């Protein structure tokens, strides 16, 4: 089935099999491999992207459901808020606060955290922990992740 999706501000037409997940389509067809496949069952959050501005799990989204929507991935966030080639301020906050070790969960953490802040759910450490609970970090960098999100949220107007 043919679908029309705007991915990181780029209108894209694709023929997809109804079995394909949005995650697989992003990674395998569009080579947007920043979005990671962790568990493929909605447990880990590594595949978090924004669909029409809301954070969702691309592994549990059949690609056919993304027809006529706008998708933003980690590759698109400079395009959203910063100049090409430079880190987004939230990415910088992750670096400054040691919010990663292996980095595999980080794109999902960033996409989830951007939404968490935009939703107004990053006002306290407690809120951040609760509303980021869908993003697991097996290296256990949680303390840094919470600090990074808090510092980024504090710098927001």
């Amino acid at each position, binding site marked *: 089935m043919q679908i029309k999706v705007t991915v990181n501000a780029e209108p894209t037409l694709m023929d997809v099999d109804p*079995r394909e*997940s949005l995650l697989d389509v992003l990674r395998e067809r569009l080579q947007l491999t920043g979005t990671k496949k962790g568990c493929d069952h909605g447990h880990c*959050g590594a595949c978090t992207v924004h669909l029409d501005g*809301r954070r969702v*799990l691309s592994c549990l989204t059949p690609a056919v459901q993304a027809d006529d929507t706008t998708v933003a991935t980690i590759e698109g966030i400079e395009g959203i808020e910063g100049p090409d080639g430079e880190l987004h301020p939230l990415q910088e906050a992750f670096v400054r606060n040691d919010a990663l070790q292996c980095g595999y969960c980080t794109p999902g953490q960033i996409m989830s955290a951007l939404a*968490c802040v935009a939703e107004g*759910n990053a006002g306290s450490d407690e809120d951040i922990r609760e509303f980021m*609970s*869908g993003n697991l970090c097996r290296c256990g960098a949680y303390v840094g992740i919470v600090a990074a999100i808090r510092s980024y949220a504090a710098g927001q107007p």
Partner: protein
Amino acid sequence: MYPFEYRRASTLEQALRMSADLAPAAFLAGGTTLYDLMKLGVERPVTVIDVNRIPELSHLRLSRSALVIGSGVRMSDLADAREVRESFPIIREALLAGATAQIRNMASIGGNLLQRTRCTYFRGTHPCNKRVPGSGCSAREGIDEGQAVLGGSEHCTAVYPGDLATALLALDAAVDVLGPDGARSLALADLHRAPGDRPEQDHTLRPGELITAVRVPATRMRQAYTKLRPRESYSFAWASAAVTLSLHPDTATIEQSRVVLGGLATRPWRVRAVEDWLHGRPLVEAVALEAGRLALRDAEAGRHKAFRIDLGTRAVADALLRAGEQHE
């Protein structure tokens, strides 16, 4: 994944027609349960009918008598709705205690009510009567830590995992359904079924029927939802309790209450005996704990699940006491 036919319906009539013509079909809303179970090979519909673009299903309206929630409304939108924050705090509490922000943005209310069990054996490849009728129940001799302590049968002890249905039952909600024989409404209490000798059948909907809305009667009762789980966030309940109650204005004794257990039984589990016992009693800690013990009186401890009977007792007590602290 098994191949299947994908169809998209833009009206309710179209969805029902597709479902009749292309059976066995499954309706797809948020997909967080269905698509996941299709990946595991547990669900194998021949046709998947996408109902996400049917406008009527995403309505939410509050009248003087009821809150009517379209079955396609997303968990996050319902939790954030002004009507819910102001008039049905227990709905918001139960929704935010479930899943994660990402999943709540995806999952629909209809799908949430019909979510399937998280029993490890059901989702795996061991024999399971719910997944493959007649194949046996691996939990009987296996690890029963997370199995139901109430409502099980020799064929199945899989827990109904939802938080929302537990809260909605304490609000005496009803569901509107539409199917080949037309529209009907049934009490939420009659939607889910205990496994008995047909564990493959989780609910009482007829083939081809679609939940279109949930109706929650307006209430002034105090309300609270308590969920106890293996970790602080993002985990299914080991035990939960939803309570709605009203206190006598002069004596502060309990006038009316509804007490529902979640995460402990094969279906949302209302305990009317406890409600009757609570009538006329003062809402103090000793009474709340005794009510909790009474709610779990018939629970089965199995081999590894006795601790959940204690958790259930405390969940009931906590929900009762927290509800009592609220203003009417």
